[in-house]
């Protein structure tokens, strides 16, 4: 068994555990997009295990589809988190334009962090992969920063569950951005596979964190009880 297939199997084990927790505790009702993301990850993981046997150029095609799906889900999850935060704070106005402005600002800042280069001697498909991974790395971190700024500017309180999900996503997004920047600087470019493995390990780290958090009974928020005593 190679390291890649071992990582995939561990990832699927963690995903299965997380899905079981979500179903048994009925968390899927409150976080349907995140739950769908977990199902997507499990299904795409099963496909990727089979795709490992394919030649590299074919494997990369599968990987690209997987990556696009992951990132679209990630944006949808952040949107879901924003909606949940609004509901938790009993606010009706989302102020989407403010969120969009903050996202643009964050994207400009994050993209200026990196000297985006495509290493020489790469095939067109590898170039496409690198451009896409760079763009997604920026969008991921910018979207998380925009959500953080948006909630801070509006003094919104985060529910614990949503905060843990954002923590895992933020950790993964920051490591992925570092991995993409490392790729652009190293002469071997996309062939520096160990960088991708570190990125996948950060994803496993986020999954483990969620499994540990959701496996425990979530503490009740004291404020909600306290406020009923005080504000009446």
């Amino acid at each position, binding site marked *: 068994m190679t390291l890649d297939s071992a990582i995939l199997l561990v990832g699927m084990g963690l995903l299965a555990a997380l899905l079981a927790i979500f179903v048994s505790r009925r968390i899927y009702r409150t976080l349907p997009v995140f739950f769908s993301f977990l199902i997507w990850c499990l299904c795409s993981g099963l496909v990727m295990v089979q795709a490992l046997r394919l030649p590299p150029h074919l494997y990369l095609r599968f990987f690209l589809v997987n990556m696009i799906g992951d990132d679209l889900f990630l944006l949808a999850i952040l949107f879901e988190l924003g909606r949940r935060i609004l509901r938790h704070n009993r606010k009706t106005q989302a102020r989407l334009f403010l969120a969009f402005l903050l996202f643009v600002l964050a994207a400009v800042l994050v993209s200026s962090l990196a000297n985006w280069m495509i290493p020489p001697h790469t095939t067109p498909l590898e170039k496409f992969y690198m451009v896409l991974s760079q763009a997604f790395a920026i969008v991921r971190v910018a979207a998380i*920063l925009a959500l*953080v700024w948006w909630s801070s500017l509006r003094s919104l309180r985060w529910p614990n569950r949503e905060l843990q999900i954002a923590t895992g996503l933020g950790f993964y997004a*920051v490591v992925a951005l570092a991995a993409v920047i490392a790729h652009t600087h190293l002469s071997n470019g996309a062939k520096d596979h160990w960088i991708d493995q570190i990125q996948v390990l950060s994803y496993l780290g986020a999954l483990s964190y969620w499994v540990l958090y959701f496996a425990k009974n979530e503490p009740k928020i004291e*404020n909600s009880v306290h406020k009923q005593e005080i504000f009446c």
Partner: protein
Amino acid sequence: MILLVLQFGAIASVALYLLRWRGAVRRRNAQTWDSLIARLRPDWSARELSDHFLWKEGLDASPEDAWQRMEGPKGLWVMYQNARVMLEMADYASRNSEAVDRVLLETLRSDAMQIRVCVLMALAQYGFSKASEGVRVNAYRAAQMYTGMAARMTQLLQENAAVIVPDFVAAM
């Protein structure tokens, strides 16, 4: 190589910022009235400056007297920290009650910002020129705004969380 180090430094800063933000959110989630009131600094009170402190804006002292009674930078720093805690109390009230007067909330936010700017200016001036005329005037302005903010905070608590008022008065 320098560029790579700079880029990783910037990413580390983003990670650190997100970590600090997470810590702040967790602290905010665990807030209660008791924890907020416990953070008010009782070692100096603006009662030294006004007989109507907490109920009415304004000082019963000249800038020179006020500077003496606030024990110089000590009183300024207490005002700086208490303004921040009162702002958190106002935010806490707004998060937990629909009935909070929005105009009053915005005024409290503005008060907190002005007090802190004024205190920082006074402290910076004090660092260069000790208790000069400019320092005393800035300290007086900060103290005046502080009495106004405290009176508005009492009003907010009376309207929305009356049981907390005695603890707030005792802590201030």
